[in-house]
């Protein structure tokens, strides 16, 4: 098919192109309690072809682009039509010119890890066995679980010589824990690993089973008012995406972000802790085939760099770095015990945590939080947090303890002062 695509590109007259081939082999298990409800396998190959068309508008060099998905099922005539249509469409998507990244043929990369050495079915079985091995809590149980193990080979070619390929294996999924007493409640959990990290899954499941028991004790929402709010775990990744998104050339070029190199992103007068954030390469190559490497983004609250894809980086006159999925954040100075020394509302589970990168507002409905009033800790449920990171970012206190998942490594928790909470 690759040859057919190249012939189609040449035949329509496109001189510049990007081809991405994604081959996915998957094994999936779906359980209701301890019964297998469905097993699935899949073998899918997709080519995404982007063709670029150069033109001149009022003396200014322009570059339009459009894409086509090519499937193995297509015959040569269909492939030709899809790519010719894309090249025609590119006429009408004329944007300011940008250069494609140059490169050369590189050896294929297989990302290391124990998943690479086993079949997708074996890996799915191992994760399922691990999860259900801890399903023995006296008061809580695993209600449902879904396991997805993928072996994905991504190959990238472009007209400037890039020819790279990498294979990654990933296991992800979700499970629901439930308890029946004193009330029937559940907690959602998701997981994602790039290694056969079954021990981490067991730990997560054990903690989740304890957490859902705690949630069953929670019957009321906190009283409405303002609280010192602690957020923890995966919510930090989403919260701190505010900074990674606003540092991206795709936000800066159109004026959606006012970030610039050297800017103090938390403001000039930081009362709390200053942010230290590094972009982490979770795959060897970015979307357009640029090699990815870890990149220090924010040091002591100062933006060191702007990053982004080829097009928007070119527009801003910076070296294209590619986009990143992972982040590493330096831990704070306070232990969890210190964060909890004074009254707080620690939200351990939201219905759905929302971080609006444009407005800076974050929040969501509280599924489970622990309220410390200075004397005792009470589990609460209901009500909502509605904070503004722009107003609160000068006084963030990060924990010494660490949380880690496939896209985040950094403080387990952050504490904000004076966050509005809707309650009873």
């Amino acid at each position, binding site marked *: 098919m690759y040859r057919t695509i190249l012939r189609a590109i040449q035949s329509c007259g496109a001189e510049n192109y990007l081809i991405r081939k994604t081959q996915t082999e998957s*094994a999936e298990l779906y359980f*209701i309690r*301890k*019964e*297998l*409800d*469905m*097993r*699935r*396998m*899949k*073998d899918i190959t997709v080519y995404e072809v982007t063709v670029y068309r150069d033109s001149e508008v009022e003396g200014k060099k322009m570059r339009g682009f*459009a894409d086509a*998905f090519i*499937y*193995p*099922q*297509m015959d040569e005539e*269909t492939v030709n039509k899809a790519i010719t249509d894309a090249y025609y*469409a*590119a006429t*009408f*998507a*004329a*944007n300011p010119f940008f250069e494609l990244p140059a490169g050369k043929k590189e050896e294929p990369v297989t990302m290391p890890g124990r998943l690479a050495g086993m079949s997708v*079915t074996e890996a799915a079985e191992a994760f*399922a*066995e691990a999860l*259900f091995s801890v399903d023995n809590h006296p008061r809580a149980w695993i*209600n*449902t679980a879904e396991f997805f193990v993928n072996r994905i080979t991504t190959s990238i070619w472009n007209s400037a010589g890039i020819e790279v390929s990498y294979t990654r294996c990933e296991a992800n999924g*979700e499970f*629901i824990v*439930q308890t029946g007493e004193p009330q*029937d*409640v*559940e907690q*959602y959990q*998701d997981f994602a690993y790039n290694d056969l990290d079954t021990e981490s899954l067991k730990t997560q499941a054990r903690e989740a089973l304890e957490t859902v028991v705690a949630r069953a004790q929670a019957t009321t*929402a906190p009283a*409405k008012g303002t609280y010192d709010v602690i957020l923890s775990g995966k919510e930090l990744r989403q919260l701190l995406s505010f900074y990674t998104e606003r540092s991206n050339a795709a936000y800066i*070029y*159109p004026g*959606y972000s006012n970030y610039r190199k050297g800017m103090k992103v938390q403001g000039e007068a930081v009362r709390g802790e200053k942010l230290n954030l590094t972009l982490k390469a979770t795959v060897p190559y970015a979307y357009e085939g640029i090699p990815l490497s870890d990149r220090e983004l924010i040091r002591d609250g100062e933006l060191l760099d702007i990053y982004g894809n080829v*097009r928007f980086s070119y527009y801003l006159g910076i070296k294209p770095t590619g986009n990143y999925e992972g982040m590493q954040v330096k831990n704070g100075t306070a232990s969890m015990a210190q964060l909890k020394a004074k009254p707080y509302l620690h939200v351990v589970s939201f*219905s*759905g945590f*929302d971080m*609006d990168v444009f*407005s800076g507002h974050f*929040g*969501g*409905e509280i599924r489970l939080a622990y309220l410390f009033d200075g004397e005792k800790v009470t589990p609460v449920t*209901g*009500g909502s947090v*509605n904070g*503004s990171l*722009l107003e609160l970012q000068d006084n963030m206190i990060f924990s010494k303890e660490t949380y880690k998942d496939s896209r985040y490594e950094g403080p387990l928790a952050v504490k904000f002062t004076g966050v509005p*909470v*809707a309650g009873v």
Partner: protein
Amino acid sequence: MQVNSSKILEEKRPLMKKLLAGLLETYTYASILAVDAEGKSYAVSRAGINIAKSDVWSECGYVIKVYDGESYGEYAFNHLEEDQIDGIVTRIKEQLMPWKEALAAGLCTKQYPRMDEEEASFEKSTECGRMPGQMGDGEVIEKLKAVRDKALTQREDLIDCRTACSYQVAHKIFLSPKKELAQNVMWTTGVLVAMAAKGEEIKTSFASCGGLCGLETLDEMEGLIPGVMDSIGYLLVSEPMVPGEYDCICTPEVTGMIVHEAFGHGVEMDMFVKKRALAEKYVGEYVASPLVTMHDGAAVAIDQSATFFFDDEGTPAQDTIVIDHGVLKGGICDAQAGMALHCAPTGNGRRQSTDHKAYTRMTNTYFEGGNDKLEDMIASIENGVMLCEATSGMEDPKNWGIQCMVNYAREIKNGKFTGRVFSPIVLTGYVPDLLKSISMMSETPKLSGAGMCGKGHKEWVKVSDGGPYIKARIRLG
């Protein structure tokens, strides 16, 4: 004009039949769903002009479902040729279905009966005004540019206006021992987003048009401008919400989000099978005000973006009355959940794509209209707000908690808007409390379907939702 059938699928239909026959030599039930879908998006903004195929709405693939006498398995792939049929059958017979034997001790397969189905054979297509071939990429971009340019002239404080259009033309063929179905469906949506700065905050407002139609919906986009500009004006003078419980008027989009997120997900009956939905215990009981009648179905609102003729398990589309004058009548159901619960599927078995599992999913979900005039509803509010622009929501079928986010709320005192605006707003509370508090409903329901719906945090499908303006008591933060 009618949406045409797919050349690829028609060419592959004989091979699909041969493959199905091969599977039925071993298994008492097997089905094949084939999908050829083209999804395309156009956008114009300060970031530039973008024309792109959508990876969520585009695919060309197959999924086979097989019953081995006690349980089901699925195999998804996207290449079918004559010489591959034996290999596919072998992969299913030797790897997929025996895989259950490799499960760890203590785990077993859930027992299901064979799929019970009735004879059916049809091919149906939706109608649309202008197909992609009749409106070229250049004309689409010019229309989007014109609307954007006009919008940008409306206010001097706009950072940007983004106009966008997306469509999907989806062809599906479903084959099983008793069924041979085909459908060709097109939906299109247009979206206008405006952005303005309020200090370091960027406030955004949006509106959409479209549904089960072609690119002719682009002609409606200019009509979205006044509403979006009004909203930007409100957002720029907005202040943080004062948390509390308020009498609220919900616009039809906010009503739709409450219908969909707060209640709709809770009546997806695969959640009944998992004992994850409180609604199961309330069938036959009042869960809402007697004013409330709620529908879901791909056959209910023929001009909406989740309308189709059969679902991804070959079940014909239906109109399901979920709540009848306040009483919960039942849920919506996919075929496998139906087997587990011993009830008939309702045409709600939907997949993100052939390489995703089918779950019970909503389609077009809405409250019927009531008898009140909007002006009377506003006049009835002593101290409350009108909730505008639904932005996102998250379901909680197990405990009927509400999380819905709306962009802003306009204060109403003594029956009149005061000019005070709050933003953003989080709705919380207990679903039946909210639904039972509904005391007024305007006459005409309005549905919109620009967005997508996830099951939990994944499995995206196109849906629409809506209803009339409603008056209810809601906790806001």
